[in-house]
């Protein structure tokens, strides 16, 4: 299974970057979101896959009785997801504003601040 997940992680990264390489602002955001998903999945995978054993101590016990999934990567991914949400929503709104003000989706037309002078 890990192989499949690794494949998906690779695909998410490749796809995300491919989208970042496009000229459209919109695709850029899609790319960033895909990348973010890829990174989260990667962290999750690194923490090993354990089926059906959430890191929740059963009622009545003080410690885990048997195996459990590594909780730390989960916590990290959770934090990363929430942060990602903040950043992505900002980016999405930014795109909206850019479009409203500059009226184009084509990133190639948005290079006045790079020009000399």
């Amino acid at each position, binding site marked *: 299974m890990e192989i499949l997940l690794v494949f998906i992680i690779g695909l998410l990264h490749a796809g995300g970057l491919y989208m*970042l390489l496009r000229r459209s*602002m919109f695709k*850029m955001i899609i790319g*960033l979101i895909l*990348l*973010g998903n*890829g*990174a989260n999945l*990667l*962290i999750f995978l*690194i*923490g090993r896959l354990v089926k059906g054993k959430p890191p929740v101590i059963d009622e009545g016990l003080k410690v885990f009785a048997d195996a459990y999934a590594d909780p*730390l*990567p989960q916590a*990290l991914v959770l*934090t*990363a997801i929430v*942060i990602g949400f*903040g*950043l992505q929503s*900002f*980016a999405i709104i*930014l*795109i909206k*504003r*850019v479009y409203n*003000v*500059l009226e184009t989706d084509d*990133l190639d037309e*948005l*290079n*006045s*601040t*790079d020009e*000399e*002078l």
Partner: protein
Amino acid sequence: MSNPYIILPIVFHMAAAVILMFCWFQPRVQKLLSILFSLIGLGISVWLFRLVWHEGFQVTQAGNWDAPFGISFIADTLGSTLGLLSSISLLAVSIFSTVSMREERIKFGYFPTLHFLIMGLQGAFLTADIFNLYVWFEVVIISSFVLLTLGGKKTQLEGALKYVSLNLLASTFFLIGIALVYGLTGSLNLADVAIKIGAVENRGLVNMTAGLFLVAFGIKSALFPMYFWLPASYHTPPAAISAIFAGLLTKVGVYAMVRMFTMVFIGDTFMSITLSGLAALTIISGGLGAIRQQHLGKIFGYLIICHIGFLFAGLGIFTELALVGTIFYLIHDIVVKTNLFIVAGLMNKLTGSPFIKEQGGLYAKYPLLSLLFAIPLFSLVGIPPLSGFWAKVYLIQASFETREFLLVGSIIFGSFLTLWVIAKVWSESFWKDKPEASSSGKPWSTFSTKEKWGILVPIMFLSIVSLYIGLAAENIISLASRIAAELMDPSAYINSILGMK
């Protein structure tokens, strides 16, 4: 030494931001409070710096969980120094903001965000946990996004687009890097990681991970060929915002790079060579960019890049001597770049144009102001004995000793280009008569007294600091040497975090 209060700089700025948010609709109150908070913040940073200087590293374990289980915070000399410098920049910028920032921007969260930004920086400087560092980085970048776009002017938005996308890309790489480090060592605590990563047998994986960190921090610190966001965006926001960005943002990337590459990924020759090469290219590329520009903000923006190269030169050489140079330059650069962008903002206002072609006559009209401006300008060039000079001596010396002549050449060349550019700015904006056709600025005499002081005090404050750095170089060198020694031998850092004797 354990001290639960060392995170005061972080918490204080968070509290400051919260209070400022409660004053959302009262710009005047916000202005006053922000200055007050910046002053107190400076006091706290001074306290922490002195504490570290006299009594050594200060550690606290959040949640009272022993390292490496909880999140450790450590105030070492480097961290507390950078914290102090951020506070200095903040004080100057917050004073400057009170008079230069448009009321609308203040009504839309300028000051809270500013303090959040500083909080993020302080956090990044104090944390000893990689993932926590990531989180602080995110605070920094989201605040910088907000500040960069505040007001939503056309150019701001255009610049922000590149800034945002590339910085998010960097964050992703950073996150992946952290995941891999966790996978390799099972730990996130910097000290613990530093110990455990040595035991990883499959070195290739460590090296690849190092590559990810290189690019993640390389983007954030505007290293060649990853700096594109900087020239595209730094000149677009109001001067106060550019100033704080210029002083601190790329520097936090440099800081992170220094931390990771002096503690975790050490003894990697390939990376050292790569860093040296990139440093040289950064210097040259930044310098080449600077000589082409007409927009004052862009000129200084490219100079930031150029000088980031200096910082990385030291890291690439990686001898104690070189690190002294890097640290000294870092200290100098934060102060001077902040000042420079404030000055640029004022020049823009006085002449009515950000383009040096359309500026002019400053010297004839405002001789005293011009002399004041000359301090940051020529400090940047590193006209001895001003602050920019000393670090270069160390860097050149260190590169000679490791026989990295390419670096010597680029440092000299970069210094020359800086000199040339600043001389050109001086000749165009100060010496030249103001072109008739260009739009007229706002004469100094029309500024209110409050405005005058709000502008002059920060410039003078920063100029005094940079003069101090230059003229009392001995003190700064001893500080930088201590930091460099600590960086070269991180065992003290590791031991104090892990609580080992």
